[in-house]
């Protein structure tokens, strides 16, 4: 029996992510914890997150979880969701500019503000709601998920990875942007699979059954 650890650092609603993982994990156990000792022993880790990047990084450091994430990122399959994806890059321009975990080269930038009235369709920030995700590179987490499936997003900032090969999924809002990244044993989504009905559950199931190789 494998243990999937969900890193609980007080940022956001882990209820839905936890129950979605339980739904798909089969005999695997879900461990929601902020204890680095417990988490380092997990077979897989999930890094969730909502809110601001500064609060997120501060809490990760306060709970001594940033070192855990970096250490575990070299060992076990790890999934970042929403802000949990954003902190995997090197830097975010949110909150005046915040250095992040640096698991992927690149940065996190804000969507352009909505155009003024009369300049075409108004695009609101945050980007909130259902959008299609294009699978631009094959990856085991896409298994059984049709290309261009709908996923639920809510965010004002998006990742801009330096290496194009790290982008495995894109979506379009204002412009094309990276919404899924992966390398080695790491994978991360900007959207919320736990809020995206069947397609989201399928992604989580694929992660739960993934051995971390591509």
């Amino acid at each position, binding site marked *: 029996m494998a243990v999937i650890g969900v890193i609980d650092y007080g*940022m*956001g*609603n882990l*209820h*839905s992510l936890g*129950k*979605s993982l339980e*739904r*798909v994990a089969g005999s695997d156990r879900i461990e929601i914890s902020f204890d680095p000792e417990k988490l380092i022993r997990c077979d897989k880790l999930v890094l969730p997150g*909502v*809110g*601001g990047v500064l609060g997120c990084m501060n809490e990760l450091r306060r709970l001594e979880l940033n070192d855990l994430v970096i250490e575990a990122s070299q060992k076990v399959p790890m999934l970042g969701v929403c802000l949990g994806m954003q902190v995997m890059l090197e830097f975010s321009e949110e909150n005046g500019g915040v250095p992040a975990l640096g698991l992927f080269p690149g940065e996190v930038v804000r969507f352009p*503000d*909505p155009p003024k*009235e009369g300049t075409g369709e*108004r695009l*609101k*920030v*945050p*980007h*909130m*709601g*259902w*959008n*299609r995700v294009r699978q631009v590179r094959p990856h085991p987490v896409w298994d059984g*998920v*049709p290309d261009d*499936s*709908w996923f*639920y*997003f*809510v*965010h*004002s900032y998006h990742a801009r990875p330096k290496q194009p090969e790290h982008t495995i999924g894109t979506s*379009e*809002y204002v412009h094309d942007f990276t919404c899924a990244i992966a390398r080695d044993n790491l994978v991360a989504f900007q959207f919320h699979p*736990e*809020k*995206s*009905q*069947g*397609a*989201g*559950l*399928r992604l989580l*199931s694929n992660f739960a059954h993934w051995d971390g190789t591509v």
Partner: protein
Amino acid sequence: MLAKRVIPCLDIDRGRVVKGVKFEEIRDAGDPVEVARRYDRQGADELVFLDITASSDDRPTLFQTVEAVAREIYIPLTVGGGVRTSADVRALLKAGADKVSINTAAVHNPDFVTEAASRYGVQCIVVAIDAKRVNKKKEPPRWEIFTHGGRKTTGIEAIGWAQLMVRKGAGELLVTSMDRDGTKEGYDLELLRAIGDSVPVPVIASGGVGSLDHLVQGLQDGHADAVLAASIFHQGTYTVGEAKRFMAERGVRVREQALPAFVI
């Protein structure tokens, strides 16, 4: 591209879904879990629960309801009604809500929105604005906001209020026309446009839907990002799927129903 959202709204009273016209003739309309599951299967993009239970003693019942629903559905759930303190927000999020809707408490203390947004993130703070037209005929339009389920006037001008709420940290606005609520005459499109065009965050249109055309109008003429409706879905007049097909035919970008094969 982002789809426009269709959001059924469920009034909850002591753990049951109820329906009524303007708080009168309230009738039992079923078990929240069953109703939520039905809308989820029909392709609802989100759900809104509005707790209309009068007594605050019944809060634990609401939390149980939210928990039971959140276990069963995998789309975003917003819960509103009687959210007054940070502890209320926390308890609802912990029970499984993805967003909370704040109305009266924001009027009493606008900084409550900031407090909640900075603690839990703007993405989970919806400010509900109940607005009523107060100008006389031939005067320029003016709406003021009402609290306590539309019974209490505040004298606060609605457009400026909407802008203030966004500055205070609202991630989304739920705009209800008190003039149209329950009338089935359609949304107050002028109100929706006035607010939607003056704020950077998404607006959910509410109050007055009686036909599928009204949904399309709210998005195309009201410039809303999402449409909320209660009675047309509860009374079984239309399913969410029928509404979406109708909207798609009229050029609205909607999320098609997920294939049942996805379900694990």
